[in-house]
């Protein structure tokens, strides 16, 4: 039996009035404390715990526990057996993740298996609430422990920097997964707010809000949810458009969140790397994973695929490592068979591309590669989005009917569906170029453009605040 957990939505979401009041307060206090480095860090840490605790204060202890485990493991590596310390810390951190995220899935799967063997048993199910962002901050904690082991980062004697690295609110609940080696050096430098950083902040926040509040929300309400709720009632054309719609919805939702997170961090003086780079432009799945959720794919490469052996131990071992990494990457998203299938599809195709020597092609080959890659990714998204395997299989069966009714589809929805394609095939450095133009004009003009953009976005958005998809991970 497949199951989906109910996504939990923190009240302090980015596109809410509460956050719109919260952030300027934190911004003002953080820059007022610019010359007092330690106080500034404590302020940001406190604000981050307020941000996280706004949803449920009890899980702040979980966040604190994971952070302290990471910090202690860093410190213990100075005197103790380094490999042993890393092993214990990673097991502890993954154990916390597993307990909250996979306990129910494991028990349900076990019960289903026992039932299939005619061995009904009462198993100790518990209602476990999935803490928001647990997958993200667990991976960041592991990043610190392993980066210390690899001597890419010096273990911190005091816990403050490590606590702040793991809890900093812009990226806490849905990434990007920031590497310890990238972030901790920024805490050692004097905090600076530059015109360029302000422009980046304004641009990315506006881009992110547009993608999330306008595009993703309309696609969800008007196209994707109705199609996936009742696929049997849909024509093949609507199933196809619903699939494309989800591909664009999840891109706009997730990359929108990343944009807002990176922009907010820039306004606080921190630099986070880009997390999406026109992923649906890819003409191979290898290229797709260099463009989609870049921080996760790099994390999986550096902390899972390479330690497993990468491509160093022969062809079949390479394929096995690719499949294992992607299946575990799928399970990271959620404790359900459909995420496992999603990961397996990606792993199997990556291995296939490796076997065929396919690197994306040129000319007509590149076009074909794009067509195949985009539709493979969309097909895998069906498993990702569907409530269960039955819905996914019904979608595929319906697609093969080749019926063409448009049902309740509106022209407006079709236009909204088209917009994210512009982001994919438009200028690659669009956000950077806009930010550069904002830097070149007086600040009051840049601010005016930012406020106007926010107002237009709010006007265009449907009512209500839908949670970000990746909060459930």
């Amino acid at each position, binding site marked *: 039996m497949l199951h989906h957990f109910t996504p939990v939505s923190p009240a302090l979401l980015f596109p809410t009035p509460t956050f719109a009041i919260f952030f300027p307060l934190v911004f003002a206090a953080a820059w007022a404390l610019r010359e007092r480095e330690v106080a500034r860090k404590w302020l940001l840490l406190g604000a981050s715990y307020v941000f996280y605790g706004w949803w449920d204060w009890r899980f702040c202890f979980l966040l604190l526990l994971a952070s302290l485990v990471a910090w202690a493991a860093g410190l213990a590596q100075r005197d103790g057996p380094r490999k042993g310390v890393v092993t214990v810390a990673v097991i502890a951190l993954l154990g916390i993740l597993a307990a909250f995220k996979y306990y129910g899935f494991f028990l349900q799967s076990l019960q289903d298996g026992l039932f299939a063997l005619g061995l009904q048993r009462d198993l100790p199910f518990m209602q476990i609430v999935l803490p928001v962002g647990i997958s993200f901050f667990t991976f960041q904690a592991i990043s610190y422990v392993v980066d210390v082991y690899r001597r890419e980062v010096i273990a911190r004697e005091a816990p403050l920097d490590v606590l702040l690295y793991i809890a900093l609110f812009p990226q806490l609940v849905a990434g990007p997964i920031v590497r310890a080696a990238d972030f901790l050096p920024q805490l050692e430098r004097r905090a600076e707010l530059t015109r360029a950083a302000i422009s980046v902040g304004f641009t990315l926040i506006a881009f992110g809000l547009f993608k999330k509040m306008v595009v993703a929300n309309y696609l969800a309400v008007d196209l994707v949810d109705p199609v996936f709720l009742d696929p049997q009632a849909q024509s093949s054309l609507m199933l196809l458009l619903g699939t494309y719609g989800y591909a664009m919805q999840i891109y706009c939702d997730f990359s929108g969140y990343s944009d807002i997170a990176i922009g907010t961090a820039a306004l606080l003086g921190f630099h986070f790397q880009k997390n999406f780079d026109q992923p649906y432009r890819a003409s191979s799945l290898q290229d797709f994973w260099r463009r989609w959720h870049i921080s996760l794919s790099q994390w999986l490469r550096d902390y899972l695929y390479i330690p497993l052996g990468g491509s160093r131990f022969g062809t079949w071992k390479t394929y096995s490592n690719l499949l294992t990494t992607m299946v575990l990457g799928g399970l990271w998203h959620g404790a359900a068979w459909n995420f496992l299938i999603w990961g397996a599809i990606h792993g199997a195709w990556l291995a296939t591309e490796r076997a065929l020597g396919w690197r994306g092609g040129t000319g007509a080959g590149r076009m074909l590669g794009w067509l195949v890659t985009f539709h493979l990714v969309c097909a895998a998204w069906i498993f990702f989005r569907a409530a269960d395997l039955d819905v996914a299989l019904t979608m595929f069966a319906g697609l093969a009917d080749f019926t063409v009714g448009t*049902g309740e589809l509106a022209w407006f929805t079709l236009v909204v569906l088209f917009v994210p394609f512009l982001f994919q095939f438009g200028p690659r450095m669009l956000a950077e170029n806009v930010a550069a133009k904002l830097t070149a004009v007086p600040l009051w003009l840049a601010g005016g453009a930012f406020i106007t953009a926010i107002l237009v976005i709010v006007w265009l958005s449907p009512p209500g605040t839908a949670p970000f998809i990746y909060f459930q991970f």
Partner: protein
Amino acid sequence: MLATRCLAIFLFGLLTLATFQSSAIVTTTYDLPESEMNERVVLLAETWHGWMQELGLAGITEAISEQLEEWREQTIAAT
């Protein structure tokens, strides 16, 4: 200095949103837990919304919403 000017932009932005989204502010305050202070907040929000309605600014958001709803209802099948 730069931070101060940036903060001024945020505050002006909040004021702008409060001006044109006054009805959304009222709706948000209705969800607050019941207390004497929150009742005053609701009253303040309603008063502000009343002022924005008199100035005709609250109507802009409503007009745009209605137009978007109209577009969302124009199905391809019906055309």
